[in-house]
């Protein structure tokens, strides 16, 4: 794993609070599970119908009937449960998931998210992402701050088709943490040696800076 991705995951795992129900998106977010400290009792929700994802199975325990939303073989934790997809999304839509951490392609200053479709490319489908961003109590997006060309993925407005409008609560990149508040996007933290100036340079979307952060930099 690149150190960039590793850094993002390390910061993202701090979002996971003890005793909560968490849904992790496919890809980088799934990897967060490996970093959750053992003393935190978390129930991971998998939208294909499982509450309480356990670790990957040993070779002898691989079960084709027990997979996560990424179609990987998994196990079930003690106290977990299985259910159908209507129930699974009732949990999501009904606000019973405390935290969802998903990947992103673009995030706008008003908290719009695009993460499912690139026009002109083969459309694979949105899976459960549109439901999750509407339903989870807190939606955290993790993504690299810029694309391969060094351009900001945090845009004034998303150019890509949306997954959800005004749905992002927090954005974690390799450089910064932003919150989306009624009064706009706020820079809360700078990460991994970046400073506010660098963040401003690589962020297309306008944002304000948390007072505490201003104070810290002033020191």
């Amino acid at each position, binding site marked *: 794993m690149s150190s960039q991705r590793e850094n993002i995951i390390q910061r993202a795992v701090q979002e996971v609070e003890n005793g909560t129900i968490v849904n992790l998106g496919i890809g980088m977010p799934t990897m967060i599970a490996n970093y959750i400290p053992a003393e935190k009792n978390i129930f991971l929700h998998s939208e294909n119908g499982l509450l309480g994802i356990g670790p990957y199975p040993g070779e002898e325990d*691989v079960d084709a*009937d027990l997979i996560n939303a990424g179609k990987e073989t998994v196990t079930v934790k003690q106290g977990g449960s299985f259910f159908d997809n209507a129930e699974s999304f009732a949990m999501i839509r009904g606000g019973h998931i405390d935290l969802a951490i998903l990947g992103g392609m673009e995030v706008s200053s008003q908290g719009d998210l695009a993460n499912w479709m690139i026009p002109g490319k083969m459309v694979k489908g949105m899976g459960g992402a549109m439901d999750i961003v*509407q339903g989870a109590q807190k939606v955290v997006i993790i993504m690299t701050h810029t694309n391969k060309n060094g351009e900001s993925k945090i845009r004034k407005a998303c150019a890509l088709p949306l997954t*959800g409008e005004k749905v992002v609560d927090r954005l974690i990149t390799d450089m910064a943490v932003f919150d989306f508040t009624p009064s706009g996007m706020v820079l809360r933290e700078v990460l991994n040696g970046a400073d506010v100036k660098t963040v401003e340079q690589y962020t297309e979307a306008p944002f304000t800076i948390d007072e505490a952060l201003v104070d810290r930099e002033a020191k």
Partner: protein
Amino acid sequence: MTKVQTSFEESVARIQDGDTLIVGGFGLCGIPEKAIQALAEKGTKNLTVVSNNCGVNDWGLGLLLENKQIKKMVASYVGENKIFEEQYLSGELEVELVPQGTLAERIRAGGAGIPGFYTPTGVGTPIAEGKEHKVIGGRQCILEEAIQGDAALVKAWKGDAYGNLIYQKTARNFNPLAAAAGKFTIAEVEELVGVGELDPDFIHTPSLYVQHLLVGTSYEKRIERKTVQQA
């Protein structure tokens, strides 16, 4: 009163060209392997297939794609299938992408006699285009309609002769929803148990949703992503 049938070939013969078919499964997990194979052999055409995914190139619903039996696919994610991509890009295959939760709820609504419902899912996205919008309880929603199938194909773990079914682990997924939403539901099971052996408190699909029940043998249960713990 028994719903047990012995020939997958005869059961899937109920499905007509042009029918809408709801198929259980998530990825390759919990798919009705045997009925799909029988339907591929039968060659029924112009199907509208409603299923979360569309199999892989040479397995599951991919077999029907390969045979060009599917006219339209309604799914939430179709990224695992090269043939799908080809047929879609050539315009042979019509595709309706539906958010997974909305898809599950639309199928449930079909089985439950709820013609339509409002959901916040998809508001502000391409999914909402052309759909009726309404603010309910302060929340902007779109109207989604129920999906019913002329037939449904489902896979359960155990079943009895009356059609009561139980599923195992995440192989449950869309299967109970599909069973209820099919006007003619063909259920395949790994094991047929005696009537009364399933605990009435713990039946996932009550008998009245099932029309035909068949026992499948030597299930392949292919795994898409085998992941194991590093020792």
